[in-house]
């Protein structure tokens, strides 16, 4: 690195200016490489696609699928390139990373794979581009189920993404362990108490087995809030978290205390895994790869996609799984109608607001979501179809045992109130769960902490129903 010549050689007239100028030039020369990302957005013919890569190195389903789509896209659009930008991270960290990328036109990707629960929040931040103009001219859009369209519609009524699948949740149970515990192979609990009773029977009669697992606390993150806690909450009333009519988040709800009481019971009566294991961020990998296949866990409250992992082409093949495991819908608290609870989320392809290549990004979406690609992706990733033509396809209806059961839950499934403050609500729910699971707080106290936390960032309404 060359610096300016020393000022001593020629007696300077205004040394200060000279020095400052030299310094500025030096700084510019040094800073050059640091900011040499070129023009914002880079090459106009290259579309950057950001997606989450699993932290499980055996799990490369999305990467493989996108690599295939990239080949197809580049073949069909000569001269255009699709650049895949994987972010290998846990779900919460992935969201943070992508939100930071989308803050600046210099780093914004063009196409983003977005968790639909964050759409409202990211729309409020101005990160996403509405797609209504593109959808208007796209034949396939009428194929999408209304429930799926609701997932990508923001508060302003506009649509911000194209969903590529959804999911449902329920109970998986091990029939072999159930037989040893004297429980039926066609088990279908009607109330929370039925679930706890079955777990107690396993604890008494089949020692060494974890009776019941539900995702808990901040380790599993959003999985704990949605798949663990909201599956309970949504069995206590119609809108347990947020009142859409009054547009208020709810405090002082008995349903929240009851759900926390359920969590407390699971851990205090040793009906769940050891809390250390339950609060571990990598617990989901253990459920799928270790506890269920090795017969260490009797009942898991989990998602429809598990079976996919155990198929011969899955990440952890387990030949006997469809014979060993049964499925049951998760019940409402006291068996109130509709009697079954499921929550659904899903992922969508969205275009970053600060992308300079929205048109090109949209062309990628069209390639990603052709009927055959959509079918291929749904089956590969073990998802629930969001298009009627995919749902009716024979390949979809037979791709994994139990797909009809989980597709059937779409009729009763609910969605998270994915409003701008949802990420904080989720985090507060996780903390409340963790407090009762560790025994640090009683349910009533943890519920009060949640209410207090909620008041600090959301418009709330007291509602002691």
């Amino acid at each position, binding site marked *: 690195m060359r*610096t300016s010549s*020393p*000022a*001593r050689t020629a007696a300077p007239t205004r*040394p*200060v200016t000279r*020095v*400052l100028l*030299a*310094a*500025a030039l*030096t*700084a510019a020369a*040094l*800073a050059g490489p*640091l900011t040499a990302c070129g023009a914002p957005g880079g090459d106009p013919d290259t579309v950057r696609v950001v997606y989450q890569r699993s932290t499980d190195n055996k799990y490369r389903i999305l990467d493989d699928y996108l690599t295939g789509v990239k080949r197809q896209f580049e073949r069909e659009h000569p001269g255009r390139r699709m650049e895949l930008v994987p972010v290998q991270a846990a779900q*919460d*960290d992935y*969201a*943070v990373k992508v*939100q*930071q990328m989308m803050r600046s036109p210099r780093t914004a990707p063009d196409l983003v794979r977005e968790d639909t629960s*964050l759409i*409202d*929040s*990211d729309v*409020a*931040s*101005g*990160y996403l581009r509405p797609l209504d103009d593109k959808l208007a001219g796209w034949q396939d859009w009428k194929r999408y189920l209304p429930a799926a369209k609701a997932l990508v519609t923001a508060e302003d009524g506009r649509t911000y993404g194209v969903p590529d699948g959804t999911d449902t949740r329920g109970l998986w149970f091990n029939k072999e362990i159930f037989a040893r515990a004297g429980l039926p192979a066609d088990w279908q609990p009607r109330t929370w108490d039925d679930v706890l009773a079955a777990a107690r029977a396993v604890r008494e009669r089949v020692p060494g087995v974890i009776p019941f697992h539900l995702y808990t*606390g*901040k*380790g599993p*993150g959003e999985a704990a809030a949605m798949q663990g806690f909201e599956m309970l909450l949504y069995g206590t009333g119609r809108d347990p978290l947020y009142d859409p009519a009054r547009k208020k988040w709810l405090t002082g709800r008995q349903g929240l205390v009851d759900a926390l009481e359920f969590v407390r019971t699971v851990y205090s009566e040793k009906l769940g895994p*050891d*809390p*250390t*294991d339950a*609060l571990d*961020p990598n617990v989901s990998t253990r459920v799928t790869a270790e506890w269920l296949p090795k017969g260490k866990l009797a009942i898991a409250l989990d998602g429809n996609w598990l079976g996919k992992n155990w198929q011969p082409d899955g990440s952890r093949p387990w030949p006997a799984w469809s014979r060993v495991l049964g499925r049951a819908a998760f019940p409402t608290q006291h068996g109130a109608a509709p009697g079954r609870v499921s929550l659904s989320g899903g992922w969508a392809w969205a275009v970053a607001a600060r992308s300079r290549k929205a048109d090109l990004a949209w062309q990628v979406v069209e390639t990603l979501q052709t009927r055959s690609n959509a079918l291929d992706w749904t089956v590969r990733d073990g998802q629930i179809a969001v298009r009627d033509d995919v749902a009716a396809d024979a390949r979809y209806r037979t791709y994994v045992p139990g797909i009809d059961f989980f597709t059937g839950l779409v009729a009763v499934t609910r969605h998270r109130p994915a*409003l*701008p*403050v*949802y*990420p*904080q609500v989720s*985090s507060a729910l996780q*903390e409340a769960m*963790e*407090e009762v*699971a*560790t025994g*640090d*707080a009683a349910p009533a106290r943890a519920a009060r902490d949640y209410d207090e936390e909620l008041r*600090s*960032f959301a418009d709330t309404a007291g509602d002691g129903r």
Partner: protein
Amino acid sequence: MTAPRRRALTRWLPLAPATVLLLLFLAGPVVWCVGIAFTDTRLTGQASASWVGLANFRHAFADENFRNAVVLTLVFTVLSSLVGQNTLGFALAALMRHASRPVRAVTGTIVIAAWVVPEIVAGFLLYTFFHRRGTLNAILEALHLPTQNWLFTLPILAVSFANVWRGTAFSMLVYSAALDGIPQDVTEAALVDGATGLRRFRHITLPMLRRTIGTNLMLNTLQTLSVFGLIWSMTRGGPAHRSETLPVFMYDQAFLKSLIGYGTAVALLLLLVGGLFSAVYLRLLREE
């Protein structure tokens, strides 16, 4: 332009590029951060941020979890840096002076190896060591001693031990160098005068090392205050906030709850804590 002034300017010249770079890439972001701490900036869910004055700081002092984080940060710093790394580092340095060459080589290698592994690797190593079914409990079981679920019941102790394990090498090296610097003739004179080991330590070693001790404490404390990766990989600040020190709390607020403004305010308060510690040490160093 007088000669001395010109000389001063010429002297400043080689420093100019570095100064400009520091202003641009260090002072700039710092000032920017200070500004953000007084706004309600969020990572997501907000169209534009607005100025909220001291609201973030008021919120912090009213926030039970923030107070918990301050207490845990002090526990973590005092235990692992002041008591652990510093004392152990000194003891190792002193003992190794009288050890045979192979013992010195082996001990030094082990201690320094713990220091040079990346933080995240150390975090996972110690996670498996302290885990409920980890190495430590296996050893305790073999010795028929009661086992503990370290990461669950006493996570702040576990992460403090981890930090001692990882950071002692630095103190050891500093003190080794300082002990080597004590003139032999002073020690010999004391020996001739019949001073016992303890008195030699009190009246010769300690006074001669006072500045080193102060410097080492300051560096250690500032490093320990900002430890994040080690705690994050071992406990994520959990369970139920039991090992949530200020850096972890800050990350949780800023990135998991997307309250960037609040997280930044907490960062400033952490800076203040570091400043307080430094001020105390500097005073200690000054008293000749």
